[in-house]
Structures are given as C-alpha cells and as structure tokens.
C-alpha cells in the first residue's frame, strides 16, 4: 500500500493506465533551410492556438468559466513574442532544428521561474511546459495520448494531469487518477472534485512502483493506493464504491431545489471557500451563496503582501460569478496556528489567546485598510458581506467602523467608486456571546464560528492532541451560547449563520436550525447531503428538540436524544 494526499473523494478499482509524455527528439541538428524550419514553427503555433481555443470552449462548457481561465493564460504563452523571437533567431543564426531551439529557449525560462522561488511562477512554469510540449507535438506531427481514445475502465497514473488533458476526461472510462505531483489546489485536483472522480496526489516515484495494467484500488478519502489485495479487501471496496455511488446519484436530484424542511420551512445552505478557484465547485453543488470566503490563502501563498489591486481582482471575480447570491468575505484571520512569512510577528506564548485575527488587523492598520479598500471597491460587483473575525469587545467593531468611514471619505474625495455591502462579525469568543445584544445593534449580521467558540469555551487548544475529548460541539454550554446569540440577533432583526464544522455535520446542522440559526455554511461537497436530510425532517420537531436539549447536562445525553428524533436515513 502507498499513501498520498487525498485530493478528491471517492473510490475506484480498475487497471492502471500510465500516461507517458510523448518522446520527442530535441537533439540538435543542422538544417539546410532555416526559413522552412521557421515556417513550420509558425504553423505549429497556429495549430496550438486553435487547439487551445477548442479546449477552452470545451472546458467552459464542462467546468465553468473560472476553472477555464487557465486557457487564456495558455493562449498568451503560445503566442508569447519573446519566446517566438528567441526561437526564430536561434534557428536562423545556428541553422538548427526547431525542436532543439524551442526546447532550449523554454528550458531557459523554466530555470528562471524556478530560481525566483514564487508559487505563482512555479504554476506558470507548468503552463509553459504544457503549452511548449503541445507546440513540439504539432511540429513533429506526433500527438500525445488522446484520453478520449480510452474505452475501458482505467485509473490514470501520471506525473500530473495537464489542463489540456483534463478536458478529455471521460468519466465513463476514467475512474480516478493518481499523480506524482500536485496537491489540493492544483488544477487537476479541482477538476477531479468537479467531476466527482477520486484522486490521490503527491505519490513519490509513482512510475517505479506502479506498472501499466496493474489492478489497483484507490481511496480518495484517505489517500490510500492499494497495490496488492485479497478478495476480501476487494469485496469490501466494491461495497463502499457502490454505496458512495448510490449516494452521489441520489444527491444530484437535489440540484436546483430549494433548501426546505419536510414541513416547508426554508433556509439557506452556503459554501465555505478558500480561493476564487473554488467557485465552480460552489456552483456545481448548487450552494445558495458563500457563507465564508477565507482570505488567508491570498496572503499565505506569497513572499510579499498582496496588493490592494490583486485582492480587488480576486474579490471581484468571486462576486461577479456568484451574481445575486450573497458572498461573505472574512477579513484576514492569521495568528494562532497561521502565520505569514513576510509579516514578522512576535513569538506568542499562547498563540490562540494571542494577537490574532482582528487584533492583528488593528495592530497593522495599513494591511487591514488595503483589504477593506479592495473589498469596498469590489462591492460594486455583487452581494458582498464583509465579516470581521474574533470580535470580543464593542470597541473593536467601533474602531473598524471608523476605519471604514475614513476609507469612504478618501474614496469620495478621489472619486473612487464603491458599492453597498453588509458589515458583520464572527461570534467565536465567549465575551462576544455574552454581549451579543450589544453587538447586534452595531452590525448587519452574525456568523458563529463554532470551532473557535468551542475551544475558547472549554479553554482547550483545538490543536492539542491530548485534549480532543474537550471538542464537544453538542455540549449544553455551546448550545446555550448559540441560543443566546440567536435570540439577541433576532431581537435586532439581523440574521445568524454558522460556518464552523458543526454546520456541515448533518445531525448538528439540523439541530442548529432548530435553535433558530438562519443559514448554514459548509464545504461545498456537503451541501446536497444537507439539503436531502433537511427535506425529510420537520422544522417543527427540530425546534422542539432544540428547546428540550438546552436543559440537558452533558453532550452524551444530547447526542442520544437527538439521534432518536432526527432522521438521517442511512447516512452517517
């Protein structure tokens, strides 16, 4: 058995299909007619551009626009003037063959990109490799694997699946893939999740360990790749696969439906995301909005602070794609277990009780302002809700509002346009729960972050392995707090959402609705499951259960009781 990074859920049992890159001769040769070689080069570029354009259209149709933007970049690379002139001049000066010249020029750029040590450039290096291999293939008339030629069930094994290959994935035959490179955020992983194909990435020496035609099992939940197995294991996985498949197909009937209970109470099921790249997944799972866009990734993948402009573009993109559905964007929440390489923070004795989230934003107002400016400008493009994390006092929110006011004044003075938006806060610190009635007068919405609320209520570090028994989401202390927050919010006529792990757990999520929470925000892949169980439970009953468990004394007691009353029908 080998273990990799699980990047897309599901199971597959099939023969492997090793995806080798076509071998193209790039040895240096002297040519008689360099001009002919240059014409062949132009011809290969034209063919490549046509091919990319076709792939782009296909990709838009299949995966959506966001995921297909990568092909715009590919078009630009295909006709890049610097590469073109370098290759042409090399061919005419050295009288050499085109494949050698192109390979040499491209390798020079790849080396430069890898030397600059920047995540964005490393991704662009992969794009350059993909595009140049395509030009080379056209130049010599060898076509790489066309995945649409595969007509038996296989699991692909590859270094990585290139963007162009992803558009050829026919899920009738391709049952999953394992790759040597890539991770959660690589293009191939995103596509796998969109197609519900199991995928495992980051398997070292994959070609040495797996041969073409081997029968293997992959488990996209755990990242396991099983090479040798007995009949019993196989039977087990066939059963798991069937069960998961049935679940997926029953869920697809909930696309386009409203999120309502058996007795007609309507709520909203929203998605948690970490990057604009996740938006197509949000749409394909039919979320009714975005309840939490974590902005940390925009900051963490970099060697420098992202500019206002860069953030603006990311927020604008998400807002535009979501149209009239709400998009809740949380301002920077670092500190605790997350840090930024370029922001030198003081060492904290108790990081989770230290300077994190809004405390950090108020310490570095320039960083905070640049994010707020980007958000306010982007609010012109959709239904924006700005959410401030870890508020624990009224003064903090007053200070935030002052900063926003100063930005508005500056915008007005400089005639910079901005739209309308709501301002809300996360309730995740017990002090905020206790003054929820005060805070509710200051903001437009609340969102309860249950993960932090639980750790702060039990005074138990959630990353501490020896303290996991204190993670008790259904403990009466937590339920009473949520009840308090909901009451305070509804008294001021503002809405409450929950965006912690509780919201995506079927049993806990339903109980939250019973407590009066207005919407739930979760991982996109959980939305349809929640919509299904919602439709087989009655809101009336959920409210009654919620009120009765508030009087209980322990989590065990609550859990026993709600399991009796809430129907999940075979789901766990």
């Amino acid at each position, binding site marked *: 058995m080998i273990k990799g990074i699980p990047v897309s859920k599901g199971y597959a049992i099939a023969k492997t299909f090793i995806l080798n890159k076509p071998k193209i001769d790039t040895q240096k040769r002297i040519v008689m007619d360099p001009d002919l070689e240059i014409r062949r080069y132009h011809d290969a570029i034209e063919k490549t551009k046509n091919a990319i354009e076709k792939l782009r259209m296909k990709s838009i149709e299949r995966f959506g626009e966001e995921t297909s933007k990568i092909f715009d970049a590919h078009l*630009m690379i295909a006709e890049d003037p*610097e590469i073109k002139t370098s290759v042409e001049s090399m061919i005419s000066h050295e009288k050499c063959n085109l494949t050698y010249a192109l390979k040499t020029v491209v390798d020079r750029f790849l080396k430069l990109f890898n030397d*600059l040590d920047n995540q964005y450039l490393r991704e662009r290096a992969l794009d350059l490799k993909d595009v140049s291999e395509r030009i080379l293939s056209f130049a010599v008339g060898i076509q790489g694997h066309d995945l649409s030629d595969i007509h038996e069930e296989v699991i692909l094994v590859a270094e990585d699946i290139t963007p162009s290959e992803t558009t050829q994935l026919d899920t009738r035959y391709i049952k999953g893939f394992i790759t040597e490179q890539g991770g959660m955020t690589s293009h191939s992983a995103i596509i796998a999740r969109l197609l519900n194909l199991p995928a495992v990435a980051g398997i070292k020496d994959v070609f040495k360990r797996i041969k073409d035609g081997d029968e293997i099992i992959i488990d996209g939940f755990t990242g396991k790749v099983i090479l040798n197995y007995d009949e019993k294991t196989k039977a087990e996985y066939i059963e798991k696969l069937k069960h998961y498949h049935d679940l997926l197909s029953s869920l697809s009937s909930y696309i386009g439906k409203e999120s309502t209970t058996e007795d007609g109470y309507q709520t909203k099921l929203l998605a948690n995301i970490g990057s604009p790249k996740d938006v197509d997944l949000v749409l394909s799972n039919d979320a009714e909005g975005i309840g939490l866009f974590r902005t940390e990734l925009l900051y963490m993948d970099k060697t420098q602070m992202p500019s206002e402009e860069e953030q603006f573009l990311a927020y604008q993109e998400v807002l535009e794609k979501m149209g009239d559905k709400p998009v809740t964007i949380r301002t920077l929440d670092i500190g605790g277990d997350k840090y930024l390489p370029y922001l030198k923070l003081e060492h904290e004795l108790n990081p989770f009780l230290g300077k994190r989230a809004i405390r950090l934003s108020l310490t570095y107002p320039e960083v905070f302002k640049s994010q707020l400016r980007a958000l306010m400008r982007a609010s012109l493009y959709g239904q924006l809700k700005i959410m401030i994390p870890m508020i624990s006092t009224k003064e903090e929110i007053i200070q935030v509002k002052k900063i926003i006011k100063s930005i508005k004044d500056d915008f007005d003075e400089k005639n910079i346009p901005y739209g309308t938006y709501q301002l809300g806060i996360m309730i995740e610190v017990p002090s905020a729960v206790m003054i929820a009635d005060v805070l509710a007068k200051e903001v437009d919405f609340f969102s309860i972050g249950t993960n932090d609320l639980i750790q702060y209520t039990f005074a138990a570090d959630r990353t501490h392995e020896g303290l996991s028994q204190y993670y008790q989401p259904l403990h009466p202390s937590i339920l009473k707090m949520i009840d308090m927050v909901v009451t305070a919010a509804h008294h001021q006529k503002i809405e409450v959402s929950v965006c912690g792990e509780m919201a995506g757990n079927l049993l806990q999520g339903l109980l939250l609705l019973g407590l009066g929470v207005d919407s739930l925000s979760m991982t996109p892949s959980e939305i349809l499951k929640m919509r299904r169980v919602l439709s087989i439970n009655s809101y009336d009953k959920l409210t009654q259960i919620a009120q009765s468990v508030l009087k209980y004394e322990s989590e065990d007691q609550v859990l026993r009781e709600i399991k009796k009353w809430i129907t999940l029908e075979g789901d766990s």
Partner: protein
Amino acid sequence: MERTYQLISETGLHARPATNFVMFIASLPVDVHLIHKDFTADAKSIMAIMSLGLAKGEIFKLRVADENEEYLDQIENYMREHQFID
C-alpha cells in the same frame, strides 16, 4: 523615448496583475520595451516580464519610439490606476 518609474506594487511584477498589464500593452499597436537593470524585455511578452523578477521598490524604464509618446501616457495612466507606480 524612455521614462523611468519606481514599482510600488507589493507583489512586484510577477503575479496576476502583471498578466493583465501585459494583456493591456499587447492591445496597443506599438512596440513597448521594459528595461530593468541590464535586461530589456518585450513588454508584450508575459514570459519575459515575469522572468525579470521585478520586485517592489525597484526602478524600471519603459521605452517606445519617439512618435509614440501618447501610448506611453496611456500606459502610465494604466500603471497609476492599478497602483504599479505612484
């Protein structure tokens, strides 16, 4: 003609905004070159621009033919609007 600027963009010139910048320049009907240290890059080439590794605070020049000054003004506006320069 050449003009000299200082890059103020936090991310330097090797991220998504740079891609949009190059697309903008590529839409102009004239040749534009970007000069940084000893290197001159075709400003319509995303690969060349990115490989310069131009970082915040660094000085660079833009060059166009003398008769194309108006285009340099346009580029300057774009850069100011998108906070590449002051």
